[in-house]
């Protein structure tokens, strides 16, 4: 039996604070898994922190920061098999890293370079979805379609608290309920949609309360507790595989960085609340947990971090070494069987660029 403890506000929690809150544990996770999960967390954290630096250095473009969202991404992904599909939003741009996607690929995406546009089938990670909530029906359709094919593949869609207001979320969730699709609707509730706080986003008591309207269970979990996230997602995956249909997971965190590099939250956010969230951020929390549990040593911490840094260094170098994109790519890939006019247009463009 796993040991899941209640946290404030009824959130599932596993990790304690080393003082008054006791540590729990998740059944089935041995030291190797616990360490692998730590590696994923550090990888994502490192990706994020380096990206902010690269942005400042002008090496990548606008970037959507996911600092303190790593536990949700790594924890949920850890509960999946490789054959399961992940449908990320811009907030989970780097989630492919935990599936072995090269950092250079994701960096290239933020560099606006075609090398950043990956083949979803390579690591079963769908393309980054920029318009809010619109990938929820994709994940549901994929899950449903896999089920119809008799394949055992679960799909998870990641989206934010704001996304739950969009019609696309609603319609996708409705389809999921009716088709009993093996889908997981994973809501990163960081309590802000750019400058709009949750209270102005919805009057629902909690986001998980929306689940009943789709005939699916709604779980609430501490989004900064990677083990609780893992555990909840694993439950959802089990339901999905058992043919019991979709699950909505609300993982609660607090956005403790700007929405994106272009954003200045000082206009709207409460800096004290941010400070508080930064103090209990998810990577350090898990690190301390592992240290308390005797699973992690200072040495390993350092080597894991160095490894991640090294991966990022290599990643940005690789991304920057990409040859400039051929302008002719403008005409590629839109159609499998393109209208003839595109060839004329390409010829015109080449003539003009050549001349």
């Amino acid at each position, binding site marked *: 039996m796993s040991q899941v403890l209640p946290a404030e506000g009824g959130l599932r929690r596993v990790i304690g604070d080393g003082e008054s809150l006791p540590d729990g544990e998740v059944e089935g996770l041995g030291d190797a898994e616990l360490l692998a999960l730590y590696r994923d967390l550090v990888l994502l954290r490192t990706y994020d922190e380096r990206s902010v630096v690269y942005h400042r250095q002008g090496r990548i473009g606008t970037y959507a920061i996911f600092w303190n969202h790593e536990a949700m991404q790594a924890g949920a992904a850890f509960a999946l098999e490789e054959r399961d*599909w992940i449908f990320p939003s811009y907030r989970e741009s780097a989630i492919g890293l935990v599936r072995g996607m090269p950092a250079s690929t994701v960096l290239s995406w933020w560099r606006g370079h*075609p090398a950043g*546009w*990956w*083949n*979803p*089938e*390579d690591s079963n990670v*769908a*393309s980054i979805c920029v*318009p809010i909530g*619109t990938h*929820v*029906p*994709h*994940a*549901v*359709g*994929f*899950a*449903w*379609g*896999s089920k*119809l*094919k008799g*394949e055992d*593949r679960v*799909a998870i869609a990641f989206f934010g608290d704001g996304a739950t207001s969009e*019609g*696309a979320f*609603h*319609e*996708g969730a*409705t*389809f999921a309920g*009716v088709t009993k699709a093996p889908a997981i609707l994973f809501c990163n509730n960081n309590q802000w949609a750019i400058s709009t706080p949750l209270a102005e986003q919805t009057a629902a008591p909690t986001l998980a309360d929306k689940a009943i309207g789709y005939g699916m269970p709604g779980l609430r979990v501490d989004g900064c507790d990677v083990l609780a996230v893992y555990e909840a997602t694993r439950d959802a995956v089990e339901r999905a595989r058992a043919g019991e249909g979709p699950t909505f997971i609300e993982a609660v965190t607090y956005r403790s960085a700007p929405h994106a590099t272009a954003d200045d939250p000082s206009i709207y956010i409460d800096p004290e609340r941010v400070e508080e969230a930064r103090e209990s951020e998810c990577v350090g929390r898990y690190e301390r947990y592992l240290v308390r549990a005797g699973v992690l040593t200072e040495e390993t911490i350092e080597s894991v971090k160095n490894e991640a840094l090294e991966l990022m260094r290599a990643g940005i170098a690789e991304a920057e070494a990409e040859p400039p994109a051929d302008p002719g790519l403008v005409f*590629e*890939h*839109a*159609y*499998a*069987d393109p*209208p*003839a*006019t595109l060839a004329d247009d390409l010829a015109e463009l080449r003539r003009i660029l050549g001349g």
Partner: protein
Amino acid sequence: MAEKLLVEAVNDALHVEMERDASILVLGEDVGKLGGVFRATAGLQERFGADRCFDTPLAEAGILGTAVGLCMAGWRPVVEMQYDAFSYPALDQLINHVGRYRWRTRGAMSFPLTIRMPYGGGVRAPELHDDSPETYYVHTPGVKVAIPSTPADAKGLLAAAIRDPDPVVVLEPKLHYRTAKQEVPEGEHVVPLGEARLAREGTDVTLIAYGAMIPLAERAADALEGEASCEVLDLRSLKPLDEDALLASVSKTGRAVVVQEAPRVAGFAAEVAAVLAEKAIFDLQGPVLRVTGYDVPYPYWQIEDAYMPSVERVVDAARRLLAA
């Protein structure tokens, strides 16, 4: 070959294609047990099972959005939108995803989905059962658009759309679902996208149209007989457009009237006129005239005939051209 109504030809295409390719799914509102409000999908659920032809919740963006996911899972979904004006909630999925997803995967994944729907007016229906939304579709990159005017083309273009590796929107002229009747080839029948049909040969003026406007153009050509020899060009496929057929006809006649049911501004007739203004300017013996729906909401049905392009308006335009 048997005679079939246009809607029967659509139904036939779905049967033949689903039989041929087990990865084809049909989904939409009321397409299953009822077989569609126009019975275009009648019999599919019985024949192929509820796993391959199913009723969805009432949510068009959800229908199209899940169809994108179904493609990713390896299916070829054929989506029905119940009516033209009820397809608009799905425009966001169409523009931001259906038209872009293949590109987004750098061509690694295909989205061979088909969106079919009845379109157009003249059927004495309540509000919003009459739209001609082709501009919204044809302007959207990554999406192809076909509009049949005859039963045989309704079957053949739908089959081509279903087989096409890209997303295709097929608009079916509901006005002629049960009035157009024609011999339709049995079994597999494919009319390639991008090939216009010369519905009638003529020498003096080309009437360019598609879908429900073809029978109208033909009646206008009849009305002008003796006065002028009209060529009627059925575009059939709006994207890809058969520019060769268009330019060949206009270079022969030197006169063009473009007929479209949709509102005028930035309608597809504008595109046709623009192609002519660019590529046939020295062939033209007069202006390119457009006969279209007006730039106002489609009206109450008691006066819808005044809104729709009429034989009289087409004839009038042709006469003005011939007099110029």
